């Protein structure tokens, strides 16, 4: 049983707010991923939870107890550092057993536990090497082993995969996920890679400028981004956002903008209307939520093909029209006949339409 709770947590560095009043509840056994662009305050938040950095405002609760003034050694957490931070003068075995030796475990217990962990991480043949004699991937596993060797209340991981090459990263990603699920230890994981976040976390916390933009499951984050930042940060390519206004057409109301002509449902309108009045708003949809449909001219999105990227299993077609631009995801067969400059029309899945305020960028949830 280990939970964590952040209440109005803030960190100020001489005048500038690195972390700005964060609220978050982390349930027992949860895998929470903090994701956001560089400098958004992810590491600072993690280091405050670890006790390496003092909060300048707000509260940290670990297991229901206030932890702000508890020293790192008494918080019973384990951390994997972005740069591994292995003790260079100790062997792999000594690195692994450091925490146990500090806790006065018996020689026999330490040996047993080190062997266990080394086996689970494929480190057994390396136990007598120094960190300088290991490859990047091996060092990474030692850092991981040092964290899991004593079952702590919380795992904290600060971009542990950022130093690995692409292939090893995918492999280790799966390994960490498997390990976390089997140990069931509450984990907070920091990354700036949204793919990593989406594949690993139960709950994803998107941060920007020191604030939480949205904390949700990967599905919710993808389907219902809370604002335009999340919409564009999560997903590759990001969600398409097109500028438009509400206008009457043939007795109905449509969203109209450069290349946009989409009828809006009546139920949606009742929510949308009061929020945006006659002003501009953004309409959003994912690249896979539109299909090429030459007959959709007055009932979807249109524009001319600008860039065509073939990825083998799929193609991404960038389409431009005036101030608006969007990307369509399609099969390579459908993309094959398209030439640059071709006029293209797409129909949009009405269930997947999202709306955002043009001024604040906040999502407007409609039924």
């Amino acid at each position, binding site marked *: 049983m280990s939970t964590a709770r952040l209440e109005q947590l803030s960190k100020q560095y001489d005048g500038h707010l690195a972390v700005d009043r964060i609220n978050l509840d982390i349930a027992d056994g949860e895998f929470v991923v903090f994701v956001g662009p560089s400098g958004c305050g992810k590491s600072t938040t993690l280091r405050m939870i670890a006790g*390496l950095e003092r909060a300048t405002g707000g509260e940290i609760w670990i297991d229901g107890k206030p932890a702000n003034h508890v020293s790192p*050694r008494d918080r019973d957490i384990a951390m994997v550092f972005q740069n591994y931070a292995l003790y260079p003068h100790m062997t792999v075995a000594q690195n692994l057993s*450091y925490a146990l030796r500090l806790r006065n475990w018996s020689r026999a217990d330490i040996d047993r536990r080190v062997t266990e962990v080394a086996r689970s991480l494929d480190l057994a043949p390396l136990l007598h090497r120094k*960190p300088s004699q290991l490859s990047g991937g091996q060092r990474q596993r030692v850092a991981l082993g040092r964290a899991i060797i004593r079952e702590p209340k919380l795992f904290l991981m600060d971009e542990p995969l950022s130093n690995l090459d692409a292939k090893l990263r995918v492999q280790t990603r799966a390994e960490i996920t498997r390990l976390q699920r089997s140990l069931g230890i509450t984990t907070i994981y920091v990354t700036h890679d949204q793919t990593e976040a989406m594949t690993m976390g139960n709950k994803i916390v998107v941060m920007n400028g020191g604030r939480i933009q949205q904390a949700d499951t990967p599905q919710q984050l993808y389907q219902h981004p809370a604002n335009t930042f999340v919409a564009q940060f999560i997903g590759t390519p990001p969600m398409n956002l097109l500028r438009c206004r509400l206008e009457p057409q043939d007795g109905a109301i449509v969203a109209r903008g450069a290349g946009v002509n989409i009828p809006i449902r009546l139920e949606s309108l009742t929510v949308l209307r009061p929020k945006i009045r006659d002003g501009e708003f953004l309409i959003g949809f994912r690249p896979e939520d539109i299909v090429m449909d030459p007959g959709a001219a007055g009932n979807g999105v249109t524009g001319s093909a600008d860039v065509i990227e073939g990825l083998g299993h799929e193609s991404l077609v960038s389409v431009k029209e005036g101030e608006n631009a969007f990307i369509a995801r399609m099969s390579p067969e459908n993309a094959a006949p398209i030439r640059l400059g071709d006029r293209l029309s797409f129909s949009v899945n009405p269930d997947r339409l999202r709306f955002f305020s043009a001024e604040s960028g906040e999502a407007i949830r409609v039924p």
Partner: protein
Amino acid sequence: MRNAPSARHGEAFLPNLSRIAGRLALAALILILCAIAVFPFYWMFVTSIRPSGQLFAYPPEMLPSANSVFSTYVTIFQDTALGTWLWNSIRVALGTAILASFIGAMMAYSLSRFRFQGRGFTEYLLLATQMFPGILLAMPMYVLFSKIGLLNSLPGLTVAYLALLVPVATSLLKTFFDGIPVALEEASLIDGASRIGTFFRITLPLSLPGLASTFLFCFIIAWDEYLFAQMFVRQPGNWTVSVGLASFSGEYVTPWDQVMTAATIVTLPAAIVFLFLQRYLVHGLTAGGVKG
């Protein structure tokens, strides 16, 4: 030659030859430089075992003469107070080196790791102390020491050396501590060690090369120091070797064989300390710990 397999024989042969010539030239240069560095010590030793009559033979003999005398090495301890001076020097130099390294380590660690009011100013002060020539400091210190009764004593001399060397030791060690990634200490704190425990288990072992070179530096400075030693200590019984050695040169005659014998003996302790510490003077102790 790997990337030029088609090179004709003549061409392939020529670069090899010039490479060998280059190596030889380099080796010769190194040998010459070594010889220049070692020669004074060699000359010192050779002179010390030369019979007094042949000291000023011209042209000077490079090789030890056939009838070398080693008796000076025994008689010098009987004829002079060299033994006492050596013992004094050992105590002062060891005391200075130990205390300067220890105090310096504590100061350097706080300067490197903690943020506090006046940290930058302290660093400036440390640098500023290096800008005064020793003689400028010696005068006021002499007055001060005479008032508080520290003159003519070995502890007093050690205190004077500490005043000179603690700032240097601090600056030296700070650079070393700065080179040890903070993340290692943070990892140790999280693993369950205290601040002090972390210092002794992580920081100290990793800064051994720095401590060893600082220790050596302070030892050698204190061992060789003359100006302060000769000003602050007047009683021959409390002299250090540098002052003792200087006292050999008389008004009319200087017994060169004795001087050189004493000089040879005096270099030994410093050499021993160096040999003892050199295994710690290795680089790259922190390799592999952190990345990025």
